[in-house]
């Protein structure tokens, strides 16, 4: 049974986007590759934006009691 791959963390996705942007800063880039990276970047940005709208915090209240008898 294969272990389902966990969703990449939002921070990781943001870092990936930064890397894509940085890629464009190198001299002599290939246009075909640039178009590919551009598409990737836009798709990634849109994914993150969608995630930012929908993601939710999870709150769990610990069962422990903290009122230790003095």
């Amino acid at each position, binding site marked *: 049974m294969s272990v389902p791959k966990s969703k990449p963390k939002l921070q990781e996705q943001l870092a990936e986007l930064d890397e894509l*942007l940085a890629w*464009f800063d190198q001299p002599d880039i290939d246009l075909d590759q640039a178009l590919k990276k551009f598409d990737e970047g*836009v798709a990634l940005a849109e994914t993150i934006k969608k995630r930012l709208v929908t993601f*939710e915090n999870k709150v769990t209240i610990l069962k422990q009691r903290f009122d230790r008898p003095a």
Partner: protein
Amino acid sequence: MELPILSVSQLIAVVNQTLEFAYPSVIVEGEVASFKVSKGKFVFFDLKDDEGVVNCFMMVYQLRHALEDGMRIKIIAQPRLTPWGRFSLTVREVMPVGEGTIKRAFELLRQKLNKEGLFDPARKRMLPHVPQRIGLIASVESAGYADFLKILDARWGDVLVEVADVQVQGMGAASQIIIAIEHFNQMAELPEVLVIVRGGGSAEDLAVFNDEALVRAIAASRVPTLVGVGHEVDTSLADMAADVRAATPSNAAQLLVPDRHAVTRELDQREQRLYQRLYHQLETVQRLLRNTPEIMLARLESAVVEHKRRIHHAQQLLKQLDPSVVLRRGYALVYLNNKLIKKANDVKTGDLLTITLARAILKAEVTHVSTKK
């Protein structure tokens, strides 16, 4: 009924049993007098009001607020008769009462802990950039708890919040918060940050956060701490010992996570930058393409000019070599039997010569031959 005869120690024991049954613990408010610490271990003071006074005793480690004579305090204690026949209150907890006392206790303890370096800026740790798992210490019924979660949810998602539901005011509150801090610090997988929040309240309510043991527990936490207690104007020693101080519970949430709307705007900017960079690339290529024919044409043109120049030069050269050009200047070509005559030996008297001029051909006979000197 005849009364039993008791020994002195039996009497004391009986009285203490009765007291324990009737008053397992009492909360008493009064003014401190004759405060003293003995052997660094035992605390003695009197608690008094206008009409009465009672002796109090406690252990130093249980005293978590600075005390001095004249302070108004509230204590939780158990009344008992000492083996020396004195009535005394064995104190478990002390809380300062009234603004003046709270301020004074705060200041005394602040000075003491400051001297120990508990509030030293060098001790402060950074909070994680965007935490994904936090330990929250609060009362789930408090406004501060609701405020914190409301702002957290509005700003960000993806955070697992584990809540230790504790009392945040009154006697015993400080101890509960300490146990919660210890609980989080003992987890197999530590939360990334510990957040302690409590909404606004009276100076007395907030005095919980000036409890010495609590302040020390916050300073000692392995997990970085963020404390947001009361309103902006309130300062507690717990705030000062925390790695990061938030003005309010809402502010704690603001300090903890970024605003998703701001991040979305930031993403728009990044997308914009992607467009710009791609556009820049396309422009570079386009410029190159646009200029290529021009460059080629220019090269071609200069090649043609060069060739033309060479051809012209060659034509000039050829013209000069053309014999008819020479004849036009008055020279003549002399042939004997279609053979060009170049020297005297080529002919003799009587030969019939053909003489070619620029525009005429003459027939002539040699009458004399001599060599030029």
